């Protein structure tokens, strides 16, 4: 057996017993060990229990007549209340929407509004069969007849459609299941084993019992896949409501890599489409509210009913052509090169990063408690808590990226009570670590104990203000750590004899490149400020504090 494994076993053998023998003895003395002899007289509760089960079963199987009547299809219309928000009054969590202020449109949807027939069956998977022809209407939550007299735009400004109309947009739902498949306008060129392929990014949302979403990637050179719509939403938001909490899940962007800025700028030209999934036993345990933001473009408008088109025109203005959205997208496009290799950063990005970050030799990294072992990266950092008496070891282990999948960061924390240990520890800790997708930063501590994408983390703003006080330590093409500046860190960095330490650069400019924020070089004007300078051909360095003011970096 190898020594390495033996070390683990030895560590396990050295642990002290969790309970002492005397404690167990005490426990045994306190416990009465009785033996119940079986006798039929002990079974006296059984008939009562059986009777109770029988009564409950009968009550369940034969509900009172009053409840059944409420579920019939022919209940009177209540045109003022929005169908999508209509729930059982007893359990309704949100107020019913009052549409009295809106003039109901003339219904162009007569009995011709067919629910199922025109929906393409090829888009449906076996688990999602909500639109099977012939399904009795009474099983559907939404009362289609009441929708005829209602406006398309809700007071919140959402476009509200029925099942058929949603299906025409590619969203298939029966009120409890939602299936949506969209191909975004993002593509990536992947180089793998000397082969270059171009892959389209598909986003599929399948919301069933657990309300989870799923993202799929589908390979292929064709820009449009069969049965997908020629338009797609820019973003998607899901909110869950149950008795205890109201939770809004993160906004997801179908064009990955485009940040919130892109969405905010495009939002005035987007149409939010609202879908409501009602809680139902066996399906969801909570209501789901979803909003899809579609681009207000001719292709999308053309797939709406004529009345809805008029409403959208009034509310959202005329549709924009594709060139507008293309320009907007190009503005925020990621500036990295068009090839993507398996090492994480592409070669040009690495070259840029190396100039902006401090690169230390392995020995110096070890002094910062960053060690590389085989394919893993291990980070041990020490922290002093607010009491200044206790110290905590933050153990952080990072697996390398495995093929095209991102690594998992394993994070742990141990309390050390010994004061002797406190004096041995260094007060250096990382604030955050970035992965190769530089716009995502994962926080190790201080601002968030669990790992999460920074773009949705309110601590990002706080983090940005700290950048001048951090050293960016370049570890490898996939990991950069931002470490708090203090005397000890500076001593380690200064002592480094490594050529690319970049200390002079750090001291002079005290800034670092946080994000390559989706800027396309050719379309962006560079604003020169006193805090920026050329560091090479067509390259700028800039102060992070001025980033929001419009200083861009291009190559």
């Amino acid at each position, binding site marked *: *057996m*190898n020594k*390495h*494994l033996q*070390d*683990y*076993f030895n*560590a*396990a*053998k*050295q*642990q*002290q*017993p*969790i*309970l002492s*023998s005397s404690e*167990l*003895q005490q*426990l*045994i003395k306190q*416990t009465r*060990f009785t033996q119940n002899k079986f006798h039929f007289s002990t079974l006296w509760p059984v008939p009562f229990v059986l009777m109770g089960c029988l009564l409950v079963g009968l009550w369940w199987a034969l509900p009172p007549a009053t409840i059944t009547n409420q579920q019939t299809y022919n209940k009177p219309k209540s045109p003022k209340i929005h169908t999508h928000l209509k729930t059982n009054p007893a359990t309704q969590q949100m107020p019913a929407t009052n549409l009295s202020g809106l003039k109901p449109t003339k219904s162009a949807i007569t009995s011709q509004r067919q629910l199922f027939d025109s929906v393409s069956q090829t888009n449906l998977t076996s688990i999602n069969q909500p639109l099977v022809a012939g399904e009795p209407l009474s099983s559907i939550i939404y009362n289609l007849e009441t929708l005829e007299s209602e406006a398309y735009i809700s007071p919140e400004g959402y476009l509200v459609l029925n099942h058929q109309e949603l299906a025409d947009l590619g969203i298939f739902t029966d009120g409890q299941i939602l299936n949506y498949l969209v191909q975004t306008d*993002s*593509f*990536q*060129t992947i180089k793998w084993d000397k082969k270059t392929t171009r892959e389209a*990014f598909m986003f599929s949302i399948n919301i069933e019992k657990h309300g989870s979403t799923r*993202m799929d*990637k589908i390979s292929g050179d064709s820009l449009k896949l069969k049965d997908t719509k020629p338009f797609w939403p820019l973003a998607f938001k899901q909110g869950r409501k149950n008795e205890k909490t109201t939770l809004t899940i993160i906004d997801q962007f179908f*064009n*990955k*890599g485009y940040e919130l800025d892109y969405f905010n700028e495009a939002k005035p030209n987007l149409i939010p489409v609202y879908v409501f999934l009602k809680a139902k036993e066996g399906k969801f345990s909570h209501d789901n509210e979803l909003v899809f933001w579609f681009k207000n473009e001719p292709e999308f408008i053309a797939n709406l009913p004529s009345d809805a088109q008029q409403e959208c025109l009034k509310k959202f203005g005329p549709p924009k052509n594709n060139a507008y959205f293309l320009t907007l997208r190009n503005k925020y496009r*990621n500036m*990295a090169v*068009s*090839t*993507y290799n398996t090492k994480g950063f592409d070669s040009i990005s690495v070259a840029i990063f190396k100039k902006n970050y401090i690169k230390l030799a392995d020995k110096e990294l070890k002094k910062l408690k960053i060690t590389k072992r*085989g*394919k*893993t990266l291990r980070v041990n950092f020490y922290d002093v808590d607010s009491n200044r008496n206790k110290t905590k070891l933050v*153990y952080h*282990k990072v*697996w*390398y990226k*495995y093929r*095209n*999948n*991102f*690594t*998992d960061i394993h*994070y*742990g*924390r*141990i309390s050390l*009570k010994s004061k002797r240990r406190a004096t041995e520890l260094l007060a250096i800790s990382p604030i955050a670590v970035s992965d*190769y*997708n530089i716009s*995502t930063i994962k926080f190790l501590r201080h601002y968030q104990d*669990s790992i999460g994408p920074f773009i949705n983390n309110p601590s990002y703003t706080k983090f940005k203000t700290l950048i001048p006080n951090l050293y960016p330590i370049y570890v490898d093409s996939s990991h950069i750590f931002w470490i708090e500046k203090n005397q000890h860190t500076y001593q380690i960095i200064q002592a480094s004899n490594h050529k690319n330490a970049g200390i002079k650069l750090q001291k002079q400019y005290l800034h670092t490149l946080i994000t390559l924020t989706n800027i396309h070089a050719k379309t962006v004007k560079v604003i020169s400020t006193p805090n920026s300078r050329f560091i090479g051909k067509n390259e700028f360095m800039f102060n992070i504090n001025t980033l929001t003011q419009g200083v861009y970096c291009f190559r």
Partner: protein
Amino acid sequence: MQLYNPVHTMLCRFVQTLVWDKEEAKDVVSETVLVTFENLDKIRDEGAFLSYLFSVASNVVNKKLRRKKFWGLFQSADLINKAGNSNADDKLLRYELNRALQKLPQKQREAIVYYEISGLTMEHIAEIQQQSVSGVKTSIHRARKTLAKLLEHDEVKNMQEMKGVWYE
């Protein structure tokens, strides 16, 4: 208790290696001992006491692990903290060992812990697991091999969502 005292340390090591949480480990040990003493009259002789005790321990541990897996309570940040007082580096090693052990099949996991950590003999293990001595040897050998691979190469697990960088 005269019967139990000599095996107390072995039992605690077994439980603490497989059940990381301090409080849960205490529960497991207590429950094991109580169940064993409750059924003391069913144990035919002193030789069978050890195998009976560890069989009960194994069942209780597995019940805990199954329940924990279902409810998803395994959170590394909390668990390391609950490991109890000991040397920090050892704690880390034990923690890694614990995680690696979770990946082994149940028989291999128990066999290796019985043998390497609790210090039971192959014959005892064979009696506990109701298999032959050669079967135990095979389990231990395979477990060692898998553990060495897991602990040395640090396999990637729990792949998170793909964070691609989108270019054109």
